[in-house]
């Protein structure tokens, strides 16, 4: 089969980082993704990275794990990512969005150290999320097709 799965089959895992209780964007993103036909496994606020990994294990069809982090603690809250990946977990794309470091003067280093942990995509506006998910989805479909054909 070469066709993309229907929208109702699309699923993502969403949540807010471990030390962070900012809930509003989480509520809105859930609505937005649902309106776009996604099934959203919403783990809510204050979610340790290991809980994200558990959810990803439970839903292997998840297209991505989406982690919001507003309070500036992104780096600390995602610190376990290399360890979990080394253990073969959280292998789907990890997309992180929000306000990514403490303070009003941001630097590229703040973003780089998140990439260094293994975060796949950094977004600062959830408005870009559906577009990114669609791109990732198309990419996966192409790869699957290549694997099947190759």
């Amino acid at each position: 089969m070469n066709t993309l799965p229907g929208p109702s089959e699309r699923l993502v895992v969403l949540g807010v980082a471990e030390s962070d209780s900012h809930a509003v964007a989480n509520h809105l993103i859930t609505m937005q993704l649902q309106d776009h036909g996604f099934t959203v496994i919403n783990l809510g606020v204050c979610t340790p990275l290991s809980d994200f990994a558990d959810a990803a294990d439970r839903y292997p069809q998840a297209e991505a794990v989406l982690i919001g982090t507003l309070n500036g603690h992104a780096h600390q809250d995602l610190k376990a990512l290399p360890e979990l990946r080394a253990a073969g977990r959280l292998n789907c794309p990890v997309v992180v969005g929000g306000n990514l470091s403490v303070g009003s003067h941001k630097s590229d280093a703040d973003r780089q150290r998140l990439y260094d942990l293994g975060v796949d995509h950094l977004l600062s506006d959830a408005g870009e999320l559906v577009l990114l998910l669609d791109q990732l989805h198309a990419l996966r479909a192409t790869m699957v097709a290549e694997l099947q054909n190759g």
Partner: protein
Amino acid sequence: MAELNGLELDPQIAADLPGWSDILAYLTEPRRPFVVNVLRAADAAGRPAVQPRCGVGGHEPMLALLRALEPAGPDILSVTIDSHTRLRNFATARDLMRDSPADLNGYPLIAHGWQRGRELGEAVAVPLEVRHGSPDGRDLFAVTLAAGITSFEGGGIGYNLPYSKNVPLAHSLRAWQQVDALCGTLAASGLVIDRELFGTLTAVLVPPSVSLAMTLLEGVAAAREGVSCLSIAYPQGGEVHQDVAALRSVRTLARRYLGTAVEVYPVLHEFMGVFPATPEFAALLILHGGLTARLGGATKVINKTVQEAYGIPDAEANAHGLRTAALGASHLLDFVRIDEDRAAEEQHWIEREVAEIIEPVLATGDLFDSIDSAFRAGRLDIPFSASIHARSQVIPRRDRTGAVRYGDSGDLPFSGAVLRRQADLLREPPGTRPRTRIEAATADIHYFLDKESASLPDRSRYAPSSPSPDRGSE
């Protein structure tokens, strides 16, 4: 569990504390500044006290921050606590304090310990308040007291639902009951600790009667434990008549439900929603908050800064915000009148809505059980809850004046009259294009961003000089 005068504590933390008599001795030193005295003076003068939020991870930087802010004229300074400490991840806070304190979004008071806490208080002349967001703040309170800090924010509802995912209300209410009880003991011996209640909740589009209902229930609980000084905070929503009415309601409702044994001070948290990014517009909103505080008779106002949209502010921006709020609250704008009839009408309905929400809760048996079961049933509720223990069936909406109304009041036990008025206020003029729930929510949440673009022509070409918004750096 260890224990400090009725406060159950983590044994390790308790072990590090000084003895109760040492704590008392330090608190009673004549030069110890008490927040309650600042509040009394501000209330008598009719000029709101001004207080910034402030907290950084390192101890020396924290001392420097307090010292940098003091010349800007705060009446009270804050020790804002980092998120790990709030959530009792004390070990994480301690590790970061050691390895990269700048990565902390607040001051890890427990990790630094009460001795350093005393140094903070001794570094400045004005009194301090510990501001946090801990569903269970008992250990933090013990260290706060030991540090000689005379004001402590929080309550069993307002520091639970916006600040954690899954702490049962029964747990947080009992934790805060112990804090309040210890304040009661201290008050009985003449040491008045100010307890501020966080009516701001989830901050974004909080209907005034939801905010007031929560703080009044917490206030009843606190008063029962003997707390004698309560600061009741309300988050500025942005529509001045509504905000003024809400602040004025704090006093009438407190008299009605808390009696006269407790001193009650209304506090305004300057606009707590998504903040505009242009410095001039942000400054106007900060000034406007000061003015609202004064018009509403607030005793204290917590200022915002022009860096709110960007991240935790630096000292300079915070000092600027402090001064701007103080100017808004000063006699300079004495000439400003508002439509008092409109404010009075708002106040009437806010008081009525609060009564309809809390009176059934206060009427039945045990207060904590009653609160707990009301939340389960949705008879108490908050919008955009962080916690799974509130249903968030309440959906707020701004009306055409910008006032925050109930688009859906869920299972709040409102009378027909209240429900009809809310529906009337939100009725769209015929021919209005219907909006999706996300469009409506986003527009209401971005209210001041939209006003900002409308009022400052060509804002798209605006580029802030040094800090740039995170969204700009993408």
